[in-house]
């Protein structure tokens, strides 16, 4: 006998998400992928806000990841704790990347200036 708390779960299969709905989400994701590709080709420097490139890209990526998490990963219909676990992992990523970037930003002034021979050669090759 398993513990009493999940007697009723034994009989259910679990919440089923209709295929049509998942396809709809997939189409939305594809649309936003197309937006990302278009934005990458459009240089916002022309209207003097070149940071917009990265802002738009990150916003779109966050929105898409949210859709994937909520619907494809079933978080919308699961118990809140599952969502917290997912968000917890994201927080750990933020901690790691944040600390590493803070550190590397701090020593940027100490980096040897100029391109190394390999880098110069690679840039050369790209141009031709």
């Amino acid at each position, binding site marked *: *006998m*398993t*513990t*009493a708390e*999940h007697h009723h779960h034994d009989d259910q299969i679990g919440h089923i998400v209709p295929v049509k709905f998942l396809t709809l989400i997939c189409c939305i994701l594809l649309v936003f992928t197309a937006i990302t590709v278009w934005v990458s080709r459009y240089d916002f420097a022309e209207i003097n806000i070149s940071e917009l490139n990265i802002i738009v890209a990150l916003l779109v990526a966050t929105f898409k990841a949210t859709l994937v998490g909520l619907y494809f990963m079933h978080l919308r219909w699961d118990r809140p704790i599952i969502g917290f676990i997912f968000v917890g*992992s994201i927080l*750990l990523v933020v*901690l*790691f990347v944040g*600390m*590493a970037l*803070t*550190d*590397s930003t*701090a*020593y940027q002034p*100490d980096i040897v200036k100029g*391109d*190394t*021979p*390999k*880098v110069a050669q*690679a840039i050369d090759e790209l141009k031709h």
Partner: protein
Amino acid sequence: MMSTSIYNTDASTTDNYLNHTKGVFSWLFTLDHKRIGMMYLVCVLTAFFIAGVFAMLIRFHLLTPEGMFMTQDQYNQAFTAHGAMMVFLVIIPGVPAALGNFVLPIMLGAKDVAFPRLNLFSWWLWVFGLIFFLLSLAVGGLDTGWTFYTPYSIDKTSSMGGVIPALAGAFVLGFSSIFTGMNFIVTIHRLRPAGMTWFRMPLFLWATYATAIIQVLATPVIGITLLLLIVERSVGIGIFDPAMGGDPVLYQHFFWFYSHPAVYIMILPAMGVVSELIAVHSHRHIFGYKFIAYSSIAIALFGFLVWGHHMFTSGQSPLMNVIFSLITFSVSIPSAVKVFNWLATLYKGSIVFNAPMLYGLSFIFIFTIGGLTGIHLGTLATDVHLHDTYFVVAHFHYVMMGSALIGFIGGIHHWWPKMTGKLYNEFWSRFAAILVFIGFNMTFFTQFMLGSKGMPRRYATYVDVPELQIYHVISTIGSVIMAVGFVITAIYLLESIFRGRKAPRNPWGGRSLEWQCASPPPWNNFDEQPVVGDCYDFSVLEWDDEEQGYHWKEGVAHPGEEESEIE
């Protein structure tokens, strides 16, 4: 309706998990957690002995300042093999995979873990990981150190050719670890019996649970890191290579973000074992149950915040250094709390000095030193002097070997009668435990002094500081004593399998569920999942002279049993 077969499994039946089915394939492809646990145990101990041989090579080589018998290249390969095998093949899987797999489901009164196939897959991944490591030795050798620091590990003109297979091996072993962790989390959440609320679980399960959380959260990071290294070395993407504009110190962030939580993967399960050892072998209810349980979780969580303390002299900015140093001290507190609680458990106990208890007491002694010397390393001013010296080597051997490994061995001795159904030789087990304790301290305490006096790490020779030779000599003598202790242990454990006395169901007087099924357990553990009470309340047990073990007191109800149902 509870059947009494749970508690008084017919001792006359000889059918158990060891002989239930026969043949090599019935083991290699088993889904039974007990068999998987035993296979892990054999594999991990074999890897331990191989890596131990490398350690002995190192210690003998360092007897003289010029180095006794190895070339620089051979020495570099020796310490890399020793470190990589011990960390990835022995200590990280160690307690969770070998002991946890066996004991955890039985402690829960369950038939198996939540995902038996995943469990088997974890074991096979361990085997593949070992094969990859052996491959790396064959395909050019490995001399990067277990930390694989860049640019050395990505520079093909510097490091030997076996790097990529070794990275692949570590990657595969990472997944073995992740799957074990996932399995244990789900098992503990879902398969607890009636009466076992979170705060009624044996502390070994709290420790295993905290470990599993770390395994699942942290290990993917090393997986990605190793992949990046493989791609960097083979294709040259330039992320860590300064010749291509990359940042070699970034690798250290990646590596230590996993490897620091990894050391808590190593120590937490051993601490869980020690909680069991101290309580059972002093017949005392554990003191401060909730605090020990919470401290395991605290260590698991804080452990993610301190990785930068491995990088204090790597050019990390002073701000980062200060932050990491401060948080590092916070991790030391839960560990100290555990030690104090174990001491309080001994108070007013009834302490027997058998092998499991000797290992448990050794743990407390050695972990105290290991933990306290962590303070020297977490403190910024002193760490500048001590980083990358033998002081660090001594510190981590005190906590990884003297604590985690000794906890592991203590657990092996504690659950040996349950796993094999045999009792080992009492005298030799105590003798070996004492030898290991003395040998260990002799080997590694001198290394603290070596480090603070000026001996750097990973040096094959020390011709400029010949006055340090005496410390190296004492260290090597200690390692021989320790090795003798381990060899004696291997001998009497193996001997017990063939000629040991048959073990009773409950030789030590434990109350957790594994002590209530036969030794060795039957194929499916329990027919029905029992109800449990307080697993540290030993007052319900009494000694039975006939079976030379403990059994439930006559006339005392089992949890969930009505008074009228008692036989």
